[in-house]
């Protein structure tokens, strides 16, 4: 069943006047897994609830394929949703939970039984059919919730913070299962999360939201390498991009950018075109550096020396914190693989991969 989803200039304003979603535009292609990600209160869940029909649209149009669905009831939209707390019916066995949407469709009993068995098989629930929800583990409840959603073969599949009630290990396992299931069933899916790792690993494309507005929608790698603005730069990545205030200057050799009191040449193969950057000379700009865009260097090769303020050892990598304030208020982070012999308070020589520098204008929009 083909189903694309379109948000056209959709806004949602609640009765108390708060705007949860502002001029939201998004196109989700048939069979695509689109992840909506952002901090809490960014409007991602509202976007999902509007599509489900659980909230009414204040302005704009919602479409499935070419049909405007603004005024359709939830039942008429043929959309299934998995809730954060699963919302299994506590008084019904797994079998009856799975069968509930089918019974509402008034399907004949043998069809209900066939589809229930199919979903149970697919999600490895066949042995649990007679259990009650309270007798299931978190992961099993999660699977029942998914089963109840897919059993009626909906046009669109919605998942709202579906993994956030699970422990870290199970979350990764179910994340993989969800991705596999979605590919197998090829159902257009919108997945909401506040966890950018989940977003990056799960999404065909990821829509980053903040304060009710769409910030950028792109494939995960593009979000990581070419963020549209400082918000996306800081939000995507763990830790996010180091974004700091800076200035540009014209030198004989080309452009130079200020970094912690030093002037660095902007290499010609920088992500931003020199022609465009030249327009920002002598103006305040922001620069962005991924934590891996800096490396420890020998004193002779080093471009800057910074003071180490903290070290986080994660086993496979170390995060080094330096006394360079970011626009978010925290300190700059550098990611290194090996374990360097460093002490907090040391002045550490560093090299910067100048071509991985990102530039943003004073409003925070990226300059490419």
């Amino acid at each position, binding site marked *: 069943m083909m189903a694309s989803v379109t948000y056209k200039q959709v806004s949602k304003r609640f009765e108390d006047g708060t705007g949860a979603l502002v001029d939201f535009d998004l196109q989700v292609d048939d069979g695509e897994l689109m992840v909506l990600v952002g901090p809490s209160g960014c409007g991602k869940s509202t976007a999902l609830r509007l599509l489900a029909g659980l909230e009414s649209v204040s302005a704009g149009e919602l479409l499935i394929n070419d049909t405007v669905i603004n005024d359709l009831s939830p039942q008429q939209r043929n959309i299934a949703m998995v809730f954060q707390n699963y919302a299994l019916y*506590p008084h019904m066995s797994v079998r009856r939970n799975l069968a509930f949407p089918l019974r509402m469709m008034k399907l004949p009993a043998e069809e209900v039984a066939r589809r229930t068995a199919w979903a149970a098989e697919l999600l490895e629930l066949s042995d649990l059919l007679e259990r009650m929800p309270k007798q299931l583990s978190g992961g099993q409840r999660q699977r029942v919730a998914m089963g109840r959603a897919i059993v009626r073969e909906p046009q669109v599949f919605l998942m709202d913070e579906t993994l956030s009630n699970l422990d870290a290990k199970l979350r990764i396992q179910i994340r993989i299962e969800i991705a596999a299931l979605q590919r197998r069933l090829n159902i257009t899916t919108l997945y909401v999360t506040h966890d950018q790792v989940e977003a990056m690993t799960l999404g065909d494309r990821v829509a980053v939201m903040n304060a009710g507005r769409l910030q950028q929608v792109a494939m995960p790698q593009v979000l990581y390498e070419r963020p549209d603005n400082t918000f996306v730069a800081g939000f995507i990545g763990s830790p996010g991009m180091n974004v700091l205030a800076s200035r540009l200057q014209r030198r004989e050799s080309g452009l130079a950018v200020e970094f912690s009191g030093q002037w660095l040449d902007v290499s010609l193969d920088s992500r931003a075109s020199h022609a465009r950057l030249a327009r920002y000379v002598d103006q305040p700009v922001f620069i962005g550096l991924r934590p891996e865009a800096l490396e420890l260097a020998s004193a002779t090769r080093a471009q800057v020396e910074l003071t180490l303020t903290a070290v986080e050892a994660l086993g496979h990598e170390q995060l080094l914190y330096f006394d360079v304030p970011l626009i978010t208020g925290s300190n700059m982070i550098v990611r290194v693989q090996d374990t360097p012999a460093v002490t907090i308070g040391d002045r550490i020589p560093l090299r910067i991969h100048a071509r991985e520098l990102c530039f943003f204008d004073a409003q925070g929009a990226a300059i490419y």
Partner: protein
Amino acid sequence: MNGRRMLTTGLRYAALLLLAVLFVSPILLMVVGSLKPEARVLVEAGSLKAFVPGEWDLRNYRDVFARVAFGRYLFNSLFITGMVVLAGMVVNSLAGYAFARLAWRGRKVLFVLVLAILILPLEAIAVPLFYQVTLFGWRDTYLVQIAPFVANAFSIYLFYTFFLGLPRELEEAARLDGAGVLRTFLTIIVPNSKPVFATVAILGFLMQWGVFLWPLMVTGGEAVRPLPLAIATFYTLPPLQWGDIFAFGVMMVLPILLVFIFFQRWFIRGVVATGIKG
């Protein structure tokens, strides 16, 4: 345990025991007295022997049935109370749900009105209500004792607060699964609301079982009168026989006890179930 602690514990128990005796003794007196021959009831009334059962004797119970149409009154009371409670559970739960979950114009204003009715005693509206039902020609019927008490502000409020506490996602899931409002209510909400239905049933039964003023105003003969009026009449029916009155009282209290025991099971189970996460 040192002596001082033992003393305070002992005193506390003594005080509790005294309180328990105070509350239980009238009921005990009634039950024991109902099983004694009439002659002994009065003789022993002034002493502690009143609480000591003699030979079991059911004559007083037989007397009650012989002297008044007890069966008729019992049926009347059961029917009226039962209908008020049953119809009340339907009407009040739906109203509570509408106030708690549905969005409609005037909801807030109407809810404030319902809350206002909470503090209005029957006595305050008894006379105008009496005129109204007289106008309808409802006097001396079951209907007149049932209809005015089905909708109950307190029950609505109990349902309202309970439904507010249910996870909204349950209903949203049901809506997405294709259930309409009424079906969601019946198949999802009601089965998960046993505690509040049990509470409303117990309280409603207690309230309705003892009503006196209203049936006195609107009924005449024994045909539709409930037990509280009957025991009042029985009391003044010569000869005055305390054993019979006790027997009447015991039979009147018994149904309340049964209802309470029956619903309490659900009530406790409900509390336990909601205590478990998920």
